[in-house]
């Protein structure tokens, strides 16, 4: 009989279940994984080094491109860090808008996650459903910033502009006209807030549909229950945050514990798992979508009742209005200085974190009295999660690797930076 030895296989970097450019070197004993060595960095763009070479505001757009499925949450982390260094605070309406868009982003992210995770494990239908709903939320992004994904909407001192009073409508086409056109435009008669309210009425039913498809599905449970189990102690040691930590039963959410924006004014719950396996993390994320929907509804209500400024009135940091710039010499000078040089940030260092859909997204900034950050470090939740890959898949079957990659909800934009 020939001697049977362990062998290594190469998983990725081009693999449909690798969620991007993950290269995994798997040492296998038959179907069982002995050791997994993830190779990351294939998408490394040096975002932090780039940020050191340009004024503070120029890097907001780079934040969208880190975790490219939860764009505005990344912006929030960066902007919060600058605001801390400058010792300024955005007006209350901007805080509510940020809260609302953070939660819209959370739903966007979790829909993307459930779609692709489902697809990896053989649930094709869900992918199509999830992407159908994502389309509405991207329309909200577009209405407010002009871009469907990379919004660059948050600014130090507030948000770029107030919510629009109207929603763009679908145009008539060969396939959509008459009654059908009226139907697709029926949500779009009012303002953006009306549109979002329509969505929040519609969405809970859809989550119920996803649950019907998955929660008691035999195949789904076979692929997720008891897979990638992490104990609470290990989860803390491994630097898990967000749903990965809560799935293991640790009740920790920055929105509650270190509240920011308008979260302390709102009513919502934090779902927590019990067993720390893929299935529990699935349940946690599904419930988070329900809670996000609830938060959005409260924000819409508040925003409808409370008009006001969305940007700080401090021309040293925020640009003056077009009107003021044309009529007032001082505003013109401020505008010129802001757009040619940017604002300078006093010497110091600050770390600000937000509860991004994937976990704690933090930005550590070091400033040296200049108009550019001296050092920026992005703390990406996915980086800590994927570093636990070996521990989570060791001893399980090859097919479970796909389930574990899915449950980590990894996006290489933020891991490789």
């Amino acid at each position, binding site marked *: 009989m020939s001697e049977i030895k362990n062998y290594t296989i190469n998983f990725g970097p081009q693999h449909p279940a690798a969620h991007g450019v993950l290269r995994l070197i798997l040492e296998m004993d038959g179907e069982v994984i002995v050791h997994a060595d993830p190779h990351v960095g294939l998408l*490394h763009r040096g975002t932090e080094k780039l940020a050191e*070479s340009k004024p503070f505001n120029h890097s907001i757009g780079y934040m969208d491109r880190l975790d490219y499925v939860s764009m505005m949450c990344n912006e929030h982390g960066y902007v919060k860090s600058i605001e801390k260094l400058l010792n300024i605070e955005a007006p209350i309406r901007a805080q509510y808008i940020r809260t609302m868009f953070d939660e819209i982003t959370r739903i966007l992210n979790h829909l993307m996650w459930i779609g692709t995770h489902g697809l990896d494990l053989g649930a094709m239908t869900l992918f199509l459903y999830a992407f159908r709903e994502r389309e509405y939320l991207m329309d909200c992004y577009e209405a407010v910033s002009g871009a469907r994904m990379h919004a660059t909407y948050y600014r130090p001192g507030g948000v770029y502009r107030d919510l629009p009073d109207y929603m763009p409508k679908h145009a008539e086409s060969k396939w959509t006209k008459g009654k059908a056109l009226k139907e697709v435009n029926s949500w779009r008669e009012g303002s953006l807030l009306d549109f979002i309210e329509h969505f929040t009425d519609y969405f809970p039913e859809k989550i119920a549909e996803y649950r019907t498809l998955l929660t008691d599905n035999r195949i789904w449970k076979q692929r997720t229950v008891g897979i990638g189990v992490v104990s609470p102690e290990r989860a803390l040691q491994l630097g898990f945050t967000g749903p990965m930590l809560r799935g293991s039963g640790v009740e920790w959410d920055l929105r509650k514990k270190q509240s920011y924006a308008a979260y302390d004014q709102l009513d919502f719950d934090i779902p927590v798992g019990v067993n720390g396996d893929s299935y529990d993390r699935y349940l946690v994320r599904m419930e988070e979508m329900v809670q996000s929907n609830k938060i959005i509804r409260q924000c819409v209500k508040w925003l409808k009742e409370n008009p006001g400024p969305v940007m700080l009135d401090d021309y040293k940091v925020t640009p003056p209005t077009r009107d003021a710039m044309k009529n007032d010499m001082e505003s013109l000078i401020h505008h010129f200085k802001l757009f040619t040089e940017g604002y300078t940030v006093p010497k110091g260092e600050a770390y600000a974190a937000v509860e991004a859909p994937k976990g704690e997204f933090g930005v550590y900034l070091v400033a*040296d*009295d*200049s108009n550019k950050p001296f050092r920026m*470090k992005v703390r990406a939740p996915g980086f800590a999660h994927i570093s636990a890959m070996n521990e989570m898949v060791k001893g399980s079957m090859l097919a479970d690797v796909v389930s574990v990659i899915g449950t980590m909800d990894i996006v290489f934009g933020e891991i490789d930076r």
Partner: protein
Amino acid sequence: MNTSLEKQLKSHFGDLISNIVSQHGEITLEVSPKNWQQVCLQLRDDSQFLFSQLIDLCGIDYLTFGEGEWQTDGVSSTGFSRGIKQKGPGRFSWEERETELMEKRFAVVVHLLSLEHNMRLRLKCFAPDTGVLAVPSLIKIWSVANWFEREAFDLFGIIFVGHPDLRRILTDYGFIGHPFRKDFPLIGNVEVRYDEEQGRVIYEPVSIEPRVTIPKTIRKDARYAENQEELEEEG
């Protein structure tokens, strides 16, 4: 709450910490490499701290800290060129510039989180100026330090003593240099292209010139100066 943490840290560690700074409601502890592991272990296990999570670990290079590319203190008659022709970081190749040895150039910065007491702490450890650029590894105290330390090694060349698997992580296989050091050019040193004759991807020196569109400008804004004075009076 932060002032009480500051007091606790001072009384508990005493000489083990070399400096303690409180700014923007955040506390930064400076620890020497010698005491690095001991302080961290106590921060994790002592019941008044219980920093059970290491949130982030990163390197930092203080070369050119506080150096601007455009002197704005005096009036100049040379117009726009004063911004473009200045020799500041990012505009020249480092071989041409004399670099003097800098004290306290590299540091490792760690962010800790205590779930029990709901507080954060920043630790800073300057690597020794002479000899090997080495700091003890924290991998035995927080497992997550593994990849973060690999990253800091990759980007800054800081060696973590006791790390079992200190490989490059973010840069290319076979990469030369440590790209996040301030004396590493933003445009890099090599570029890749597919060579048709050789039938493979080859590396060549970069063919572009470094260019800065907006110079780094140091300004001591009066508003902040006032704030600073107030703070100093208080503290």
